[in-house]
């Protein structure tokens, strides 16, 4: 069994309540940080831990914190990005629903380090019921003196609020999230200035993912150096992985970074292998935007080394033969899956979610969806594969925010590794969806 630091208590009855959470050691990091450490010492521990942003980008958290501008007399804010909407990702929902206090504890400890008087948890609107659970936890924390004026009798005061979104993937991009939090359309801002200088209402702001903030608690308790001993190289600590698709045991798993991908997919401790005795065809390892890899490349790198669940190993080989850890949205597809059809669902998604600010993304995602539709209704020609490639190559790097890349990468990777599937459809002039057993499943379950 690997070490668990975030969801080790997820099966404890009543862990969503303050009483049970505290009985299991909850809020110890708030006590320790506020009573025995300076804010800079907390930031130092986070730096030493090597913690990297768990939302997808993997930027070192301690460094992000150290960029926060601290002008006199200007409020600073911590904003939690709980707008989890990358297809294949549902770990933050699990964490907030099962152990909401783990997030609140992290919010208080992190806000202390940053000197933030107020913080906001921006939860995607569809997770309304999760927002209720988090709000209940906040209410309990206020009643226990863990939020509000003079927390635990110290000089530190802090208010924490929840805001729900309105249903827009783009608000997971940090500047779009800030726009949304200000009551506007979720249009990403041009950077610089970065939120660390001018964020919420123009004030210095740190935006961190739910899992990142929750990870601050064990880091403060065990010390950054101890945390950094878990994992391999620059991939330190534990990571929540959302596993879905054609596996026997879909769900949220906390892994020590560094375990082999093969172990994650086939061991009983995690995914439990491929459903219905089928063979694996491909994996999207880090949420819909990262390159899809065929079985041989997800299990082993191009050099023939076992692929590990780390930022570096998954990226080994660049985009030619590698992928990314991303948000940890791990989608497994069996031998009957149509890569073209799966790509269509991704591209439809990005077309739907493009905010419309930048033409390459607004128009390009729509064009790609239209071309892929031609494959599904059997009217595509061979040259459409080239056209698709051409369009995706003209979106990447030409937009304000990374949604452009997120839309282009899956198209590029599907063509790179599964071009024969596109060509087969174009030549035979028909698309056959062979994943029949799913239909039986709907009746059988």
């Amino acid at each position, binding site marked *: 069994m690997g070490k668990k630091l975030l969801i080790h208590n997820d099966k404890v009855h009543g862990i969503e309540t303050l009483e049970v959470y505290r009985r299991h050691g909850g809020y110890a990091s708030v006590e320790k940080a506020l009573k025995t450490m300076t804010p800079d010492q907390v930031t130092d521990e986070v730096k030493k831990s090597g913690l990297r942003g768990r939302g997808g980008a993997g930027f070192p958290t301690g460094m992000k914190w150290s960029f926060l501008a601290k002008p006199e007399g200007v409020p600073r804010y911590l904003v939690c990005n709980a707008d*989890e909407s990358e297809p294949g990702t549902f770990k933050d929902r699990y964490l907030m629903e099962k152990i909401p206090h783990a997030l609140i504890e992290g919010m208080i400890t992190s806000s202390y380090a940053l000197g933030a008087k107020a913080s906001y948890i921006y939860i995607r*609107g569809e997770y309304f019921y999760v927002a209720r659970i988090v709000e209940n936890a906040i209410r309990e924390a206020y009643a226990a003196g863990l939020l509000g004026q003079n927390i635990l009798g110290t000089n530190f005061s802090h208010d924490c609020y929840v805001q*729900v979104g*309105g249903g827009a993937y783009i608000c997971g991009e940090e500047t779009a999230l800030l726009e949304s939090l200000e009551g506007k359309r979720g249009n990403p801002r041009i950077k610089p200035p970065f939120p660390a200088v001018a964020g919420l209402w123009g004030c210095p702001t740190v935006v961190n993912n739910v899992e990142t903030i929750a990870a601050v608690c064990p880091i403060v308790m065990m010390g950054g150096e101890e945390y950094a001993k878990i994992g391999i190289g620059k991939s330190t600590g534990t990571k929540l992985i959302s596993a879905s698709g054609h596996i026997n045991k879909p769900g949220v798993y906390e892994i020590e970074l560094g375990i082999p991908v093969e172990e994650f997919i086939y061991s009983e401790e995690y995914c439990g292998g491929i459903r219905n005795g089928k063979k694996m065809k491909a994996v999207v390892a880090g949420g819909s935007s990262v390159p899809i890899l065929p079985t041989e490349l997800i299990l082993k790198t191009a050099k023939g080394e076992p692929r590990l669940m780390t930022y570096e190993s998954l990226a080994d080989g660049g985009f030619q033969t590698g992928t990314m850890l991303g948000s940890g949205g791990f989608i497994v597809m069996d031998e009957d899956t149509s890569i073209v059809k799966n790509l269509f669902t*991704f591209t*439809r*998604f990005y077309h739907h979610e493009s905010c419309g600010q930048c033409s390459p993304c607004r128009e390009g995602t729509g064009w790609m969806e239209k071309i892929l539709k031609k494959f599904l209704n059997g009217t595509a020609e061979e040259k459409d594969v080239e056209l698709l490639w051409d369009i995706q190559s003209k979106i990447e790097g030409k937009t304000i925010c990374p949604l452009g890349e997120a839309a282009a990468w899956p198209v590029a990777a599907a063509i790179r590794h599964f071009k024969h599937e596109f060509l087969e459809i174009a030549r035979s002039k028909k698309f056959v969806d062979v994943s029949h057993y*799913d239909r039986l499943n709907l009746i059988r379950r």
Partner: protein
Amino acid sequence: MGAQLHGTQTFDKAKRAEIKFSEEAMKTVQTIISHYPEGKQKSALLPVLHVAQAEFNGWLSPEVMDYVASILKIKPIEVFEVASFYTMYNLKPVGKCVLEVCQTSSCWLNGAEDIVKYIEKKLNIKVGETSSDGMFTLKVAECLGSCGTAPMLQCGASYHENLTYEKVDKILADYKQEGKLRSYTDLDYKNTL
């Protein structure tokens, strides 16, 4: 707000005069506004629109948007540009229960398309339409973060996961029997995680 707002929706002064939050909803709205610093009440817009949608038959009419603008002391167009950007706000009338079936990758891999077809056949409507009794509106949604429990549908605050045809039958029967408006702000949510 202009006379012609969005396709067929027009602004009706008489209707606007009748629109008012219930006392309870107004209290919720005031609490939401209090979460933001002085002068930043526009930040409350997204959550307040959810309250408004739940209060006024599950959709945001031009009159309701105008009312929300007056409460937050912003221009009506600021409300409309937000309401028309986010997918959770309905700008035309909907059934009491809006069924949103997730159709992105993991849900598709697990049969979401068949769930949509099944509901279409059962309710005798197509995606985007409302059943003749005004009870159900069927929509498709992009990834709702329920990939490990696919296929799934959302109705109001409730997540219904690991769907089968049998489960769909039960959900529709239960909602029909209750016969009430289901909104995102419901407290009696169900989820099957």
